[in-house]
């Protein structure tokens, strides 16, 4: 039930945004977010965007994996 999926914001109008999940377009309520912009990725849950995904932190986790991988080989 707590499933929520990354969706890219296509357009924003008032309290809703059109978001794309791999090309399928959904309408999402954006009342729970302070700010959201076109192009952002949000977590979509029960018809609402509940958070904007932080691209910097996402990259940082992958960097950590890379580091572990290299130190494992070395």
């Amino acid at each position, binding site marked *: *039930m*707590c*499933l929520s999926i990354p969706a890219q914001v296509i357009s924003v109008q008032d309290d809703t945004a059109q978001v794309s999940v791999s090309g399928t377009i959904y309408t999402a309520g954006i009342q729970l977010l302070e700010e959201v912009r076109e192009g952002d990725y949000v*977590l979509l849950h*029960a018809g*609402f965007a509940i958070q904007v*995904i*932080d691209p910097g932190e996402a990259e940082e986790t992958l960097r950590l994996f890379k580091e*572990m991988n290299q130190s494992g080989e070395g």
Partner: protein
Amino acid sequence: MKYISEYRDRIWMNTLAGQIASCRDMEVTFMEVCGTHTAAISRFGIKTLLPAGIRLISGPGCPVCVTPVGFIDHAVGLARQQQTIITTFGDLLRVPGSTTSLEKVRAEGADVRMVYSVMEALELAHRYPDRQVIFLAIGFETTAPATAAGILCATQEKPGNFFILSAHKVMPPALEMLATEGVSIDGYLCPGHVSVITGEEIYRTIPEKYGLGCVIAGFEPADILLAILMLLRQVSEGNPRVENAYKRAVKPQGNPRALAMMNRVFEPVDTTWRGLGMVKNSGLELREEFASLDAARMIGIDLEPSREPRGCICGDILKGISKPADCNLFSKVCCPENPVGACMVSSEGSCQAAYRYEQYG
């Protein structure tokens, strides 16, 4: 898919599994609290990547599973009323109540509809002004703010025929209860999407009071393995604390706006969890200001005392005391097509996850 496929990459899985394998001498049990984690762990075969001494058990974080029989009975009672449309997330349809389920009363002619959001229920209320439309509001902190947003819309739009029946619950009192009751675990894999809303603070007392580590985990296989590795390191260092392995989604302070909306609309109330019984301040009830939208307060119906299904050990499974295979009904009379207990109904229930993916393990 961006933010999904990168975290399913086999290279990282192997890397993380390799690091975890270096802890092969440890004997530990971690509880994944969230039902979405239970489903992901089974689906991705995470347990097969762990050394034998590192065990994962499921906790009480599947909202459908912990919803008590009495709530289903209440929903069924409402569904049988004239001029009523019941709207619900799909999983709840098949949960057996004392005598019947929403799916069965729908087959008998009741108007029960599956929706994907509270907003769809609100739209139905506008479309059918001469009928009462009731949204069955279940879920944890992840979902309650969405219901709150729907309630605030309803107070502006004033359809007059829109209600919710709330079984929303919050996680911290249940986690604390399990820790107090001494369920033997060495740490919590904390629910990522609950934490998106609440932030890290709700777990703070658990390492301090109970010495259990709390690591917030995402839902892709590499996210889950990373969180397990972090918990293992906490145990081997003897330093239980709150850590976040899902930083792209979970901020330390959570989502304050969503939290504020939830707290504006709902207030804490004692509520019953299947398996745990009454847990103080763990439920969410509409505040007095919104009482006119509360089906429980506005629509009176007579209900018989509820009965749990006989022989079903859902309750002990939700507390992490028993495994699905310990149940005499499991895979014999209880299966996803004909579920006896809620843990087999929901795709996130530990029984269904075990049935589908773990060869009855």
